[in-house]
């Protein structure tokens, strides 16, 4: 067991544990904090996969913006009276069955695929992933269209969120 594998097992266990706490925590703010831990675990997995830029972007966007936004929304929509109501809907057992069946199906399909035992090919050290990612995002024979459409999408979301949440009274 190489140290890398041990680190991955620990990080994966932490992330999955945090994910379970997200969906079962009684207090919603605790749920948000467990979500932050899970997102952090995913960032560490990105580092293990040598996608360091994505790891830092994950922390900035997910933890630094999305998670804080969720905590704000939780605090703004707290109904103290019904705080301790049941947190699962009535069909939670069906949800558990569906989740387990889906996981079983995915695991069975993946183990039947022969490419799953592949080892990671080495990246040449002169290959600067950050530079290549930047080039891919803005070069005309790369993904510049997706990049521009994503920015238009973000602009639409910005304006839409402002308009929806505007307090017209």
């Amino acid at each position: 067991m190489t140290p890398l594998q041990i680190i991955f097992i620990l990080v994966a266990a932490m992330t999955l544990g945090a994910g379970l706490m997200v969906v079962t925590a009684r207090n919603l703010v605790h749920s948000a904090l467990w979500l932050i831990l899970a997102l952090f675990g995913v960032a560490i997995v990105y580092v293990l996969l040598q996608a360091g830029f994505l790891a830092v972007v994950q922390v900035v966007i997910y933890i630094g913006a999305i998670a804080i936004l969720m905590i704000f929304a939780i605090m703004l929509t707290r109904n103290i009276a019904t705080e301790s109501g049941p947190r699962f809907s009535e069909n939670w057992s069906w949800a558990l069955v569906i989740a387990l069946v889906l996981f079983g199906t995915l695991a069975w399909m993946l183990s039947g695929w022969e490419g799953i035992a592949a080892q990671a090919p080495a990246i040449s050290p002169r290959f600067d992933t950050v530079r290549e990612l930047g080039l891919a995002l803005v070069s005309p024979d790369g993904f510049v269209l997706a990049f521009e459409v994503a920015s238009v999408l973000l602009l639409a979301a910005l304006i839409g969120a402002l308009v929806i949440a505007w307090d017209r009274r």
Partner: protein
Amino acid sequence: MIPLSWLLFFAAALFCIGLYGVLARKNAIAILMGIELMLNAVNVNLVAFWRYRTPEIMAGQVFAVIVFAVAAAEVAVGLALFISVYRRRKTIAADEIDMMKW
């Protein structure tokens, strides 16, 4: 090196946990948290396949970056909707928001 199977099983497990959160929770924001877990699992999958199959072609990472942007946009609009609904109905439980016009 980490075998690819471990990463894919990890992503599948995270996805199913997120799916359980979406289907079983009542609070709308908790459902949104389940969606975030699912999006992260998908991203892990994308980056794992990028690394193990075509590390010289950046399409996998570009896809993951676009998923980041889409997730951020979706959370922003979703939370704005929840706050707006909360102002009208004083509740945010998914099973209590069941009428089109009060």
